[in-house]
């Protein structure tokens, strides 16, 4: 059996097999052009091997030259395929080199089929045998084709191209690819050039072994592609593993996860997420469908967060209600982010959601309880000044009654004094307004409604509070003084709650003066600007100050030094002030104590 025949046939077979294996890969993924180039190169190599076999086994010079002529065709195609492979696999630059080389080679091919017996020989005259693998093979000699330089030049240019491609790949960090693929391509070209020089130009004696080298290159390329395939496979397996892990973790944490392809507007959602949102397991989902489940009132805020994240390329967080198909409501916290492509366009968004209904309900319950406590505090404060207030209302009521009785008696006269009657009626009207004002303020303070944050005028607040407290202050012989600068900005807060704090602090101040007669008895309330964003209000009394051993405890709930107190006033007041974003604290002054609190400026 001829070893040469076997070997060269095997080369052809191996190449065809490789091509057969890789062509379907390209067929399924047309983007894998390197694979296509490889398949073409493999097929060409097979053809080259067969032609070369014919050359080696040629009986006559004419046969040899003919075989060589035909071999030049797959060689040209092979070179094109290799250039293509370098272009796609190594992402080579300097394409003009490759293009020029290919053009030259095609020209050379045209010459091959038109001038002389082949591109190599104008006329092959004789054959002589050499030994290769233990047998005799043919080598031809004769008149060389002068145009063969064009083909060789093409190979030279391609070699340069491959060198550039290798360097480029090396620089890109793909060192293995640069060395292996780029290196072997370059070596193939270099070897071909060397052989061409030695044999074609110097008249050396060597059998044609192009296909051996070509096989080497094809093998390297095949290996590179297979390695890639293997890696890709491994990545797919790892990815599946990771996905499964992630799903397990999300499930364990009660997280629903989703990924949205923005370009195609499709959503892949985990089972948990579908449960959360009330979608069936197999239902096809889009981003808009998810958003539609969000409660109408929360939708705008949620969309706003999304667009902000898209603009600022960051994460977003949002809490909102879902309305399920059966009408149930659910509170959900969502965390997500947007991915961008190389051009900065959003391509994908991903996120996770968790059910926080229980937490939200607890929060709301706590808010209700806080408001209840504040209300109780208010009622208690009102209780403290109730008798003074009752007096304040009975004054105008008594006056109205007396006026009306007097008017009735006057009307019994022969000719009643109408001026006097008019004056009486006017006084009745004014007293009615007086009583209404006090009642209104009491009712405002006692109401138990939701907090309403508005812009408040500090002067007006203090005036209301003063009206409620003056009767009590008068009876207790305490002077109330107020000082508010005219240019003080408005503050942001709930009118009822701030008045409650003021009442509490001022009443405390009056209590601290109980039984003290050796000094002027006064409580002073002043307000001033504190920086650009807040206003500070202070309530000072002329009492004995806060004892050192009480100082740390006065804001504690249920702590009181009064015989008739529940001790909630300061604790509630502090809670209310802090809910407004301010602080409440106490200081001892030269005479007496001062309580200060801050409120944010409105607007």
């Amino acid at each position, binding site marked *: 059996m001829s070893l040469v025949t076997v070997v060269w046939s095997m080369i052809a077979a191996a190449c065809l097999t490789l091509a057969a294996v890789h062509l379907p890969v390209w067929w399924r993924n047309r983007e894998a052009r390197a694979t296509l180039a490889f398949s073409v190169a493999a097929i060409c190599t097979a053809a080259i091997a067969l032609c070369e076999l014919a050359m080696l086994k040629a009986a006559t010079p004419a046969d040899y030259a003919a075989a060589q002529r035909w071999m030049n065709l797959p060689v040209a195609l092979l070179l094109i395929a290799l250039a293509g492979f370098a272009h796609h696999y190594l992402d080579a630059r300097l394409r003009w080199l490759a293009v020029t080389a290919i053009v030259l080679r095609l020209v050379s091919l045209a010459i091959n089929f038109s001038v002389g017996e082949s591109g190599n020989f104008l006329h092959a005259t004789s054959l002589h045998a050499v030994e290769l693998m233990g047998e005799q093979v043919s080598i031809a000699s004769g008149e060389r084709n002068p145009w063969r330089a064009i083909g060789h030049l093409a190979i030279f240019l391609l070699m340069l191209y491959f060198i550039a491609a290798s360097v480029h790949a090396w620089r890109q960090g793909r060192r293995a690819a640069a060395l292996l693929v780029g290196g072997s391509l370059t070596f193939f070209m270099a070897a071909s050039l060397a052989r061409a020089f030695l044999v074609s130009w110097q008249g050396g004696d060597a059998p044609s072994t192009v296909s051996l080298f070509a096989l080497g290159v094809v093998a390297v390329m095949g290996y590179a592609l297979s390695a890639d395939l293997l890696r890709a496979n491994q990545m797919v397996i790892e990815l599946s593993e990771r996905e499964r892990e992630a799903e397990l973790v999300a499930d364990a944490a009660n997280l629903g996860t989703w990924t949205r392809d923005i370009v195609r507007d499709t959503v892949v959602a985990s089972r948990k997420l579908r449960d959360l949102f009330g979608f069936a397991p197999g239902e096809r989902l889009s981003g808009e469908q998810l958003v539609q489940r969000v409660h109408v009132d929360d939708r705008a805020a949620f969309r706003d967060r999304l667009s902000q994240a898209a603009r600022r390329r960051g994460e977003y967080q949002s809490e909102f209600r879902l309305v399920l198909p059966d009408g149930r409501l659910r509170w959900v916290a969502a965390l997500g982010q947007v991915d961008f492509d190389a051009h900065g366009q959003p391509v994908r968004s991903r996120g996770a959601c968790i059910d926080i209904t229980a937490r939200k309900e607890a929060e709301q319950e706590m808010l209700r309880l806080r408001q209840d406590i504040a209300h109780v505090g208010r009622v208690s404060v009102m209780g403290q000044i109730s*008798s*003074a207030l*009752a*007096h*304040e*209302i*009975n*004054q*105008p*009521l*008594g*006056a*109205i*009654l*007396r*006026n009306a*009785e*007097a*008017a009735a*008696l*006057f009307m019994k006269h022969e000719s009643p004094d109408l001026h*006097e009657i008019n004056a*009486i009626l006017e*006084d009745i009207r*004014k*007293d009615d307004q*007086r009583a209404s004002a006090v009642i209104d303020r009491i009712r405002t303070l006692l109401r138990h409604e939701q907090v309403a944050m508005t812009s408040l005028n500090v002067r007006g607040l203090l005036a209301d509070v003063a009206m409620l407290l003056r*009767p009590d202050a*008068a*009876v207790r*012989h305490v002077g109330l003084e107020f000082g508010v600068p005219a240019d003080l900005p408005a503050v942001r807060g709930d009118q009822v709650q701030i008045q409650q704090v003021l009442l509490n602090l001022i009443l405390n101040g009056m209590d601290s003066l109980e039984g003290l007669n050796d000094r002027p008895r006064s409580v002073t309330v002043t307000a001033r600007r504190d920086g650009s964003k807040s206003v500070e209000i202070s309530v000072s009394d002329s009492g004995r100050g806060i004892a050192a051993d009480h100082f740390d405890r006065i804001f504690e709930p249920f702590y009181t030094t009064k015989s008739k107190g529940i001790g909630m006033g300061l604790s509630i007041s502090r809670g209310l002030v802090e809910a407004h974003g301010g602080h409440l604290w106490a200081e001892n002054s030269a005479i007496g104590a001062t309580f200060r609190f801050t409120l944010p400026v409105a607007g």
Partner: protein
Amino acid sequence: MAEPTVHVVDDDASFLNAMSRLLRASGYLARTYCSAREFLAEPHGDEPGCVLVDLRMPDIGGLDLQAAIAQSRYPLPVLFLTGQADTASTVRAMRGGAEDFLEKTAPKELLLDAVRRAVARSRHELEDRSRREELRARFAAISAREREVLEHVLRGRLNKQIAGDLGIHERTVKVHRKSIMTKLSVRSVAALAQLSQEAGLPVHS
């Protein structure tokens, strides 16, 4: 006797006005004071009347004013008006001798009734007082000697016995007796005895 004057003391101007109107419409003279100090700055008591006092006032309160009036030379009856009645204040007021204690929103009948009673009482006291003063003036006109004779007469001694007691003639006794009767404007010994009792002299039977 003069017209009764009702004095109203209250720090609330509107109520003061209204109360004054009602009193005037009911036929009283009304005078208003917006503080206890203002009332105490003037002397009162030589006309019949009463004082309506607001319980809760700044500075000098209603109860303090009541105490001050009770200490004055000719105390007027005090009526308390309040916008808010609590037991402690009521008890204290009544103990201090208040004529009555009323709510400001009480119907006028109650109010005017109390005023009427107070004014009547004040009138009585005034009458008593002027009577006493008149008596004191009359008795002041009696000389010391006549006083001695009067005492013996009141003890029921006969003229002869008086003469013997005092070491004077019976005739002198009779002269003194006549003078006393004239000065005191009485005609009988019984009337003399009654008058003397009214004036506060000891009478033995």
